């Protein structure tokens, strides 16, 4: 039996600020726990060394304004690079599955990045997915976001991608950051039904979450047949998390991962650094490595303390049925959308960066393609934290785009170089892996 790959990168020298939840201490007790347990010495585990992601790995996914280097520091490249190490080890058959216990986190980072949102600058899982597609030809991907916060960054990135099934369960957006992730958010016109949200009531327990896993998420994975399953593995559903109000346990997390059986899990949030993380991380490692976790529990765990209310169970059951229908009917809905839309669907979007108080305004244009999910153009403007204002135009041609979308996307870039109404123009041709930035005022193009 192949071992489970673990990459533990606690970034003991990185913090957003000394007292911020994302501080050096966050994985200290997790380190103490997993080192003291000696679990890394077991033959079922293989530990890996982190590496830096390359600038191109980031630029393949994000439009960092004005540049990748301006938006991130080395810590982000190590965190993203660690996910890539796990991806390589998995694809090369060295391990049966992988868990990247890394920080900084990433699931609130969207396609365009003007700064830090929800403790995230770049999206580790999505960078890994585009790397997998580029390097190994992976096509269909399922991401299950098990963080208590809605994975709004990952959702935005794959909103129009019919080959990525993004499922997020989280505490209801009316009661928690980032205030999104409602049942009606089902994906763009050509990818409707491959974004699935399950907003849960505060105090939802193991029973409620595991019901959604068994009755909705597993059947969807079964039906969608992804090439790879990713767990965007936040740990803040835990009953002791200071930033949220759920009632999930360490054993519940272990059980979830055992049932979900993700190929790669990547740590996201989780800020109960002393009373949850050490035990939840142990539970995840044990579940992924197939080690019996029935002896694992938090010091203060009392199974009788959390009982799912019949009313909440009823709510979850209803929502599961509703989302299953949305998913099941997605092909009809998409066909319908294709018929009734013009060549392009255009929409505006405002994005707030809570960590840095940045307001970004976007105009999105999606090509309605008969053969693929279409390519996307994003006009974005924002005053960044430095006081600088940027007005940029970004063209993203997805990895599975058809030839016509690719040609039209590239032509649009050339066209914009002539029209010049922006500070910066970006081309992201993921089919050819051709990444370019055009500085309009200097008339220079950088090929990444």
């Amino acid at each position, binding site marked *: 039996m192949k071992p489970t790959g673990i990459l*533990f*990168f*606690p*970034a*003991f*020298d*990185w913090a957003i600020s*000394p*007292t911020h939840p994302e*501080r*050096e*201490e966050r994985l*200290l*007790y997790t*380190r*103490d*726990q997993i*080192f*003291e*347990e*000696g*679990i890394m*010495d*077991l033959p079922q585990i293989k*530990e*890996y*060394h*982190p*590496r*830096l992601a390359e600038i191109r790995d980031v630029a393949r996914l994000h439009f960092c304004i004005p540049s990748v280097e301006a938006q991130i520091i*080395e*810590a982000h490249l*190590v965190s993203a*690079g660690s996910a890539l190490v796990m991806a390589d080890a998995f694809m090369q058959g060295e391990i049966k599955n992988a868990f990247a216990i890394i920080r900084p986190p990433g699931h609130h980072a969207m396609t365009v990045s003007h700064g830090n949102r929800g403790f995230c600058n770049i999206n580790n899982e999505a960078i890994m997915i585009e790397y997998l597609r580029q390097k190994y030809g992976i096509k269909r991907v399922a991401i299950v976001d098990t963080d208590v916060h809605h994975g709004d960054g990952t959702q935005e990135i794959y909103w129009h991608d019919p080959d990525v099934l993004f499922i997020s369960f989280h505490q209801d957006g009316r009661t928690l950051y980032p205030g999104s992730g409602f049942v009606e958010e089902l994906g763009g016109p050509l990818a409707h039904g491959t974004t699935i949200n399950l907003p849960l009531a505060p105090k939802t327990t193991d029973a409620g979450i595991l019901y959604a896993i068994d009755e909705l998420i597993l059947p969807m994975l079964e039906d969608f047949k992804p090439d790879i399953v990713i767990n965007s593995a936040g740990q803040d559903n835990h009953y002791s998390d200071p930033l949220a109000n759920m009632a999930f346990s360490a054993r519940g997390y272990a059980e979830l991962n055992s049932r979900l059986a993700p190929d790669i899990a990547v740590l996201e949030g989780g800020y109960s650094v*002393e009373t949850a993380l*050490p035990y939840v991380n*142990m539970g995840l490692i*044990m579940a992924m490595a197939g*080690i*019996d976790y*029935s*002896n*694992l*529990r938090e*010091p203060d765990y009392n199974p009788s303390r959390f009982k799912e209310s019949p009313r909440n169970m009823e709510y979850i059951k209803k929502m599961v049925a509703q989302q299953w229908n949305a998913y099941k009917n997605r092909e009809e809905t998409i066909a319908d959308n294709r018929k009734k839309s013009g060549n392009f669907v255009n929409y505006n979007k405002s994005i707030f960066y809570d960590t840095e108080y940045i307001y970004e305004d976007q105009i999105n244009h999606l090509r309605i393609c008969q053969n693929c999910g279409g390519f996307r153009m994003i006009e974005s403007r924002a005053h960044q934290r430095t006081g600088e204002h940027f007005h940029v135009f970004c063209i993203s041609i997805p990895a599975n785009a058809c030839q016509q979308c690719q040609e039209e996307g590239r032509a649009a870039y050339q066209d914009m170089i002539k029209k010049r109404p922006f500070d910066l123009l970006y081309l992201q041709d993921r089919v050819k892996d051709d990444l370019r930035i055009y500085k309009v005022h200097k008339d220079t193009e950088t090929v990444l």
Partner: protein
Amino acid sequence: MLIGIDVGGTYTDGVLFKQGAIIATVKKPTDDMNLKSTLLEVLDELLPSAEGQKIERIVFSTTLVTNLLATGQGERTALIMLPGHGLPHDAYDICPDIFFARGTVDFRGNVIEKLDQKEIDDILARIAAAGIKRVAVAAKFANRNDILEREIQSKLAASYPDISVSISSEISNKLNFPRRAATTYFTAMTVKEWMQFAAEIDQAITERGLDSELHILKADGGTFSLDTSSRRPCETVFSGPAASTMGGLALSQPHLNSVVLDIGGTTSDIALIIDGAPLYASKGARLGKQYTHINAFAVNSVALGGDSCLDYDGEIKVQNFRRGAAACFGGDYPTVTDAFNCKMDLGIGNAGQSAEKLQQLASKAGMKSSELCRQVVNIVIERLVSSIEAMFREWENEPAYKVWEVVNRRKFKLDQIIGIGAAATAIVPQVAARMEVDSFLHDYSPVANALGAAVVRPTLAVELHVDTPNNFFSVGPGGIRGSLNDRGGMQLGEAKNMARQYLLDMCREQGMESYASESSFYMEEQFNIISGWSRSGKIFDVGIQIAPGFISEYKGVSS
């Protein structure tokens, strides 16, 4: 004058060393059943060369503990484990007489679950009824709070005074409960036999009218006194490779990145020296299938040596066994040494014999003798080079937990290969040439292991953990615990001073205070502890050591 004796698995080597020169050497086959007599025979053959001059220091390495552990012949010892809530109990397959009990401490040293008195009483009664006279106790996070281990220790002392106890918090202050439990168990099960051995050696030395300091070589390349050794005898495992590596270092220049390649009869041991410091195994010495908290050099053993015999079965084979000595030394079959002898024209022993036996094999293979030698030399070099490079990669790929460690990713840049062992002269220069670095060989290379034993200094590593909000500190080894005088504003500098002071105290106690000034910090970590949104204190982890090195009398070798 100094004496170093390395009791190896096959041979025991001894040297008498004075002012830069080896005065006498002795080599004898090791009698596994009677290590003491082998040791004393070698000593007695060396002594006449001293001509009555004072022997200041005798250091020996021994396989006694290695043999005890390999054959399971240590004292029957019960292991009581308090594993708390985590891995299933079957993950701890350390020994036959193992008992699990309730009682849990967390990483901050908080007692989460007390002992179940009745359960412990029952376990102790069962141990006593089985006639077991020695007990090892290991609780998870006992390095952060030893109260549960101490309670069991007191219970035993009160109810079963004839049963001896070792507790894990005294053995190591490091994290990793299974390693700490295994180390405690191995210590307990070997201590009785070791103490008897030590007493006999001590007596034999006294009988010979010597008043030399007596030291034992450890796996970490340092020594400890006979007295100190009885506290942690299992640190004497793997001292053979440590002796060779330190010997290689003693003979060559310091402050280089080196490979020490010790080529024996049928195995070659590879060790790394990084900027003059030997590399340790990152998970500690591995005894059987169990990792431990014993500091040991990272040594990669390859089943290939000067006596490895050569065969042909459709292709040329370098076997992992021997059929006797090399042909040039009167053997009946061609060996690796013979192939190098002919190919490089080394003139080792009776080179004509090498040529003759190689020719016989070459005829069988239907090739020229020169082609046979070329192939053998290639196989040997490539196998050694790939093993060396695998070690570089392993070192480069050690886990990293800080951004700067990843950004400044280390790369092993080799300066030289130090050859040790009888067959090194033939093989090591070729390996070095292939890797495009210098080779280093010394006339004393064949006895580098015994020389290494003679001239290495004592080592000691002390680890301090401080938790200021909990007003707590612990020091290992020894299991020292205490509270802080000023819990509020402690800074890293004070924690370092504290660790240095404990090192100094331990040096004094072990008669090695003259080395205290050469200590260096190998770990300095600090974390702010936040409660709510404000700082409530700090956690420090500090490690300070007297690293492996040489006694001040040793100023290198002449010639």
